[in-house]
């Protein structure tokens, strides 16, 4: 395996008595789209602030391409692009003026700056509104510009902090497309979100953080394989015979009754569903309702923490 592009080692950050980060350790490899999932206040933004040279940790270290991250290392900042959770663009300036300004901060000038600005405007779908003040933009357009402002200097590591907060579906798709495109070009991306679906659909590897602790970090598939799916169904009348037959289905576990429904935990949801229908046919039982839940990050989080992500 390659050397990690980003290495986080025993990172701790305290604000007074509050532990924002408590011994977080993980690696992110070149070209990886790494998802950092956790509820609000879990420590995601603090972690990104340290990695983006904005904040010194209380203890522990972060390394990017073998360079130790420090607030004093200005050169390292050229390798990083950050998309803050806030809409970090100037409403009084036009989209083009915003991008030109942020590009100039990274040493871009002249024709190169012009090319990069036009490229980013096109990539974020804002070319037609480039000369209009950002204050007149929708929330989604501002989000896209917020992403674009971090791409001008072609960073090696892109840090996205809740980049889709409060955006419309069209803008969200734009952002997803751009993130996937960037990942395809080899940019290493750390994507933090508390939206499980986003992380699950975008990221190949995921870290789950809660109360400053990294409670899991693995490939998405490996993580999902660790937990079972669920089949929840209702029949008009249950019987000991039905329960006995259900217990005989391999690689399943009958949780018993959940309200008026019965719940089966299973590794292979599709296979177990076929067997269930077969059993109900044999016993001449009608299916009143059926719900299947594939293994997902929501269940992983629930499994690991004992509470739902959005609690």
């Amino acid at each position: 395996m390659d050397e990690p592009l980003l290495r986080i080692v025993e990172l701790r950050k305290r604000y007074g008595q509050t532990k924002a980060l408590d011994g977080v350790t993980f690696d992110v490899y070149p070209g990886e789209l790494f998802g950092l999932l956790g509820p609000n206040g879990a420590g995601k933004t603090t972690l990104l602030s340290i990695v983006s040279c904005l904040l010194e940790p209380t203890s522990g270290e972060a390394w990017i391409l073998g360079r130790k991250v420090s607030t004093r290392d200005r050169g390292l900042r050229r390798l990083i692009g950050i998309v803050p959770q806030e809409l970090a663009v100037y409403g009084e300036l036009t989209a083009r003026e915003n991008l030109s300004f942020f590009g100039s901060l990274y040493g871009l000038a002249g024709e190169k700056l012009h090319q990069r600005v036009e490229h980013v405007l096109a990539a974020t779908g804002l070319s037609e509104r480039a000369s209009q003040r950002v204050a007149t933009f929708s929330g989604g357009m501002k989000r896209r510009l917020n992403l674009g402002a971090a791409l001008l200097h072609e960073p090696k590591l892109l840090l996205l902090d809740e980049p889709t907060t409060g955006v419309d579906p069209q803008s969200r798709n734009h952002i997803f497309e751009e993130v996937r495109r960037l990942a395809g070009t080899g940019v290493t991306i750390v994507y933090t979100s508390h939206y499980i679906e986003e992380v699950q659909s975008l990221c190949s590897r995921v870290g789950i953080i809660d109360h400053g602790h990294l409670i899991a970090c693995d490939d998405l598939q490996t993580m999902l394989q660790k937990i079972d799916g669920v089949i929840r169904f209702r029949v008009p009348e249950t019987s000991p015979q039905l329960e006995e037959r259900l217990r005989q289905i391999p690689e399943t576990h009958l949780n018993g009754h959940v309200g008026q429904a019965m719940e089966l935990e299973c590794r292979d949801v599709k296979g177990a569903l076929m067997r269930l229908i077969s059993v109900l046919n044999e016993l001449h039982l009608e299916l009143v309702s059926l719900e299947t839940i594939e293994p997902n990050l929501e269940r992983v989080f629930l499994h690991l923490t004992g509470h739902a992500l959005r609690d």
Partner: protein
Amino acid sequence: MLLYNLARKDFRMLLRDPRAVVVLLVMPLIFIVVLGISLGEGFGQKPDDRLRISIVDMDVPYRQSEDQEEPLEWSKVVQQDLAQTAGIRVEVIGSLEEAEELVETSKRAAVLVMGPKFSENVTRSSFMVGGVNPLFRDGVDIRKLDARFLVDETQLTAASIIQQVGQVSLLRVVLPWMIGTAFENIAERMGPLARVLQSMFPNYNLTGKTWASLTRAEERSGDGAEIAVYQSEAGTGLLGRGAQRYQTLVPSYTVMFAYFLVLTVGWLFVAERRQGTLKRLRAAPLSRSEILLGKLIPCLALSVGQGLFLLLAGKLLFNMSWGSNPLWLLPIVLATSLSAMGLALLVATMARTEAQVAIYGTLLVLVLAGISGCLMGDRELMPDNMQQISLITPHAWALIAYKQLLANAGEVNVMIVAQACAVLTAFGVGFILLAWGFMRLDTQS
């Protein structure tokens, strides 16, 4: 280049912020116009209970003989005599027409007019045969000296007092001259008699031609009122263009609103923090000093522009004078802007929300304006001890400098202006260093 980009961005944003234009340019003009119209003549002048003697001096200096080097200027002697009298202030009006208008409009109770032959007639005043004898029952018959009083018939009591003061002064000037020249003649013609007479009056110098010399008293050293040149205080038109009050109102509100930069810069900073762009700036390969300088430059430029704009508006709208040393206005504007910008940065780095900027910024600016005397329009209206206390504010130093240049009847003392500019610069540097310290804390949290 980096600094230029940072500064250009902020400058562009400031210019696109209508609040900045309203607060920094429109509001002070409104204040000056409203106060300029509503405040009357005499605003900004300390109450003065000394008796004012107004004079029109049309006197032509006179030579007794062609070989006399220095011509005699008796009108100046009269002015000096009045000025050296305690409790009296002398005002010289530029023309007879102006004096007549002042009397007709009851702005002056009486004006002493000394005509072109005043010096000649005083010189020719004598007890001797062939001389002009101006003395009569009431004192000096001033018509014989080519002098007269313009009197406002509606203020006869006040006019009478002024006339009596004038009489006394003229007596003190004319009588010793007449006695002195008479005894010079006696000495020339009857030397022994003159010596006998002098020995009989040892307390008097009978050939002394001034009151002090005649009475063997010490000359007064100007401890009376100064001689001031009359200036019209009313101005013209609805705005009272050219009125003396604008010489203090315009600088006062120029200084006061220079510090309203606190609001503009505060809002700019808080917006940077609130919308996350400050985070983006700090994440860019910039040093903290570059970020700070990038903010300082446009703020300073805006403040200097504001100061120059208001002084120019003062000239064009209110016909105020830029004084005899207008170039010295530039360092005052620059130094005031530096201190205003420093204070603005300090407040901006401490405030967390736009509401905090609005409340604390406005409070601070108004309190400082009140302490310094800006709000009153003129520091001279404050008691002496309050004027001393006001020196803790940069505003007061700016006002001192402006006063010296714009509202000073005498010669401009550039040392006072330079000292005020130095203190303002020190205020500015101090504020910036404090802001730097607070900004350091900000990045560590």
